[in-house]
């Protein structure tokens, strides 16, 4: 187990270099010159452009820029944005917001999704089951931004329960509505995945044995049925945490949450290399760690799965 974890962590090193290089190249090949774009429709002043490019190391060939960036990164310097702020400060301001939003969405997803999935999986064909199926189908078929606008109109403009946009992005209570919207799609997937998985396992031999042994229903459901049914769900949840953080762009825009999605969107638009690369690198690491945790959880859920 120890060596497995070590191997997985070591695997992250090339992934880290590969993704940063890829993103660097992608930002670099985006059309348009970021410095000239600062001038708007006015003709860019060559002397000022040269001065700014020199300041941000943009007058060097790409490979030198990359080495320069990596060199600084290992000294803990993520570079500077055009606003003159260190990218690490920008991330320190925005990541906590998005992490809160994503975790809150994740909590909705796990609690509601699993509950609905278990309820409908155990009672297939019942009215609650049909209701869950219809509701999740509706959520899956509506794009997130439509859902967000509906939620905004109904709960803020019509009912006045909340403000239309988040006034303080650090206030967890204000993030409840955007988090629910953000998590709703995954919630529907989790519910359906759980329902199907439970449905399959209900017919398994070990379930019949457990029932035949006269075990209490509680033990059957939680110790035997759920533990086995959750493996595909956990896989989904693990990768979804990363997706939630990246996918917050739309939700953050509509509810004006000042998180990482907003910063990333703006940075891509202005082609601010250091900001884009810094944020995406952190997101990649989040993905990697999440999938590592998923793999480790397998062993807990199913002792037959062992890593050596």
């Amino acid at each position, binding site marked *: 187990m120890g060596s497995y974890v070590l191997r997985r962590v070591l695997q992250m090193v090339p992934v880290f270099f590969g993704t940063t290089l890829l993103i660097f190249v992608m930002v670099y090949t985006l*059309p*348009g*010159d*970021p410095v*000239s*774009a*600062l*001038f*708007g*429709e*006015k*003709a860019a*002043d*060559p*002397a*000022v452009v*040269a*001065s*700014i490019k020199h*300041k941000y190391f943009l007058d060097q060939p790409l490979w030198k820029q990359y080495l320069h960036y990596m060199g600084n990164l290992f000294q803990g310097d993520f570079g500077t944005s*055009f*606003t*003159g*702020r260190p990218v690490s*400060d*920008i991330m320190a*301001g*925005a990541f906590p917001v998005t992490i809160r939003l994503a975790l809150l969405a994740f909590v909705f997803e796990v609690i509601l999704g699993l509950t609905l999935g278990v309820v409908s999986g155990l009672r297939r064909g019942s009215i609650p089951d049909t209701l869950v199926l219809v509701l999740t189908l509706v959520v899956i078929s509506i794009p997130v931004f439509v859902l967000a606008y509906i939620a*905004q109109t109904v709960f*803020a*403009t019509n009912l*006045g329960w909340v*403000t*239309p*946009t988040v*006034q303080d*992005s650090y206030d967890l209570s204000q993030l409840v509505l955007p988090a629910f919207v953000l998590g709703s799609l995954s919630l529907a997937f989790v519910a359906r995945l759980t329902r199907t998985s439970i449905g399959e396992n209900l017919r398994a031999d070990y379930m019949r044995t457990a029932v035949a042994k006269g075990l209490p229903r509680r033990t059957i459901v939680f110790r035997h049925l759920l533990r086995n049914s959750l493996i595909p769900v956990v896989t989904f949840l693990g990768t979804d945490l990363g997706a939630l953080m990246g996918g917050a762009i739309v939700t*953050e*825009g*509509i*509810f*004006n949450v*000042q998180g990482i999605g*907003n*910063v990333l*969107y*703006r940075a891509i*638009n*202005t*082609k601010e290399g250091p900001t884009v690369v810094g944020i995406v690198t952190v997101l990649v690491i989040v993905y990697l760690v999440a999938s590592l945790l998923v793999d480790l959880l397998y062993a807990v859920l199913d002792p037959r799965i062992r890593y050596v």
Partner: protein
Amino acid sequence: MPVAARARLVLAAATSVVLVATGCSSGGGGGTSSSDASKTFSYQSSEPQNPLQPANANEVGGGRIIQNLFKGLVDYDPSTAKIRMQVADKIDTSDSQTFKVTLKDGWKFHDGTPVHAKNFVDAWNWGANPANGQINSSWFSDIEGYQDVHPTNGKPTTDKMSGLTVTDDLHFTVNLSHKVSYFEYKLGYIAFSPLPDGFFKDPAGYGQKPVGNGPYQFVSWAHNSEVVTKTFPGYQGVDKPKNGGIVFKMYNTSEAAYADLQSSNLDVMDQVPPSALATYKSDLGDRAIDAPQGAIQNIGFTLYQSDWSSPDKAKVRQGLSMAIDRGTITKTVLQGSRKPATAWVAEGVEGYKDGACGDFCKFDPAKAKQLIQEGGGVPGNKLLITYNADGGHKEWVDAVCNSIRQNTGVDCLGDPKPDFKTARAAITSHQLNGAFRTGWVQDYPLNANFLSDVYRTGAASNDFGYSSPQFDDAATKADAAASVADTVSGYQSAEAVLPSGMPAIPLWYYRTNSGYSTKVQNVKFDSFGNPAWTEVEVKG
């Protein structure tokens, strides 16, 4: 300044590009409740793209904050668009080339230090120096010695422009390298703001915590969230604030800002989102604003191409202009948010001459067909109009093309580029074929700004490659005029040259479609599309 930024901010999302100073005529208003001069109001904003330094703000996010923190020699009266003295007591010139500036005594920066002549001269020299990477550097290019501080190639030989001389604390002289009778008008632009002595020791630090001399002083900047300002008690300007300060709240979409405005979580905004144009007047009632703006939308032509360069082709361009049904398009597709143009200078600007475009801006399909035929037709009988797809231009470009296609039989198609940067790169590197969307937002409310900077041979924003000796002559004469009034009429005669060459088709003028919350009153918009900041009253 070009229409890009504003249009982008209004119609799409994301980053904006152009700046705005303080400006002109009115709109909206009303309300009679008592007000509390100590209360702040909130305004829709976006995270500034650059550090908050006056010569570095050419986009709306930073520009509107700077113009409230700083005040230059002059600014523009929001209700009349006329120039008015602020830090300057008077600006004298006898030859339109040497300007003697006298400052008012008693002005102070927010840190308590006095505003003296050297604060202007130092700030301008610093802003002109390319080593400081200031986006608005070129604004100082009229001043003698600019070339030495800011050579196109090679290293500067000095860091002080020879045209700037400090006489004493309250007097300095500006020598220009050529006659610019309306230099005074340019001085209202924020790039000409003074900077306190402390700035030069730590420009980066001051860029994060600006210290100005304007009606509002900087309190805090929570990045991506808000910039808080409060009224500066020692402010000496003619426009003393009637409120306690402005909170600039950052929004990423105008939809989000509009939702907040409707529930009074935001007090004043720029421009309602396109999705609300049809409903905002009924949503907001008498809190809705519909005011003229000093900005124009045009279709430009690639006159540098042989296809379009022959004199005959001017007839084709005149014909195409007459084939566009501006009235119907502004009413339907643009939902009344624009007003059909009859000139190349926007409405409300000093020197605006209604109908300068003559019959060529009137819708007349029969005449249009005839002119296009006489001019030898559109090359290949096909016209491509390039535009940036991220700016909400698709709908009207398609409508213009439909108009041209139906009325003249010329095949017309929109040619979208993914974003503003890409479109601009294609336009400035002359990689286009035929026509492109263009426009201009005023830098200062004077007709010279709409003409000299755009249609002069070799002008920085002359993307058409238009070159007319008559136009250049008229513009040069106008620049050398003895008074601003003569300059204005001089540029009107320059504008009169444009119909014969038709380098660009004027389409329509922009309007400010906005509104305010139930918490504020006396909100009026100037021709820059900005509220008269200091006039806004917060209800008690």
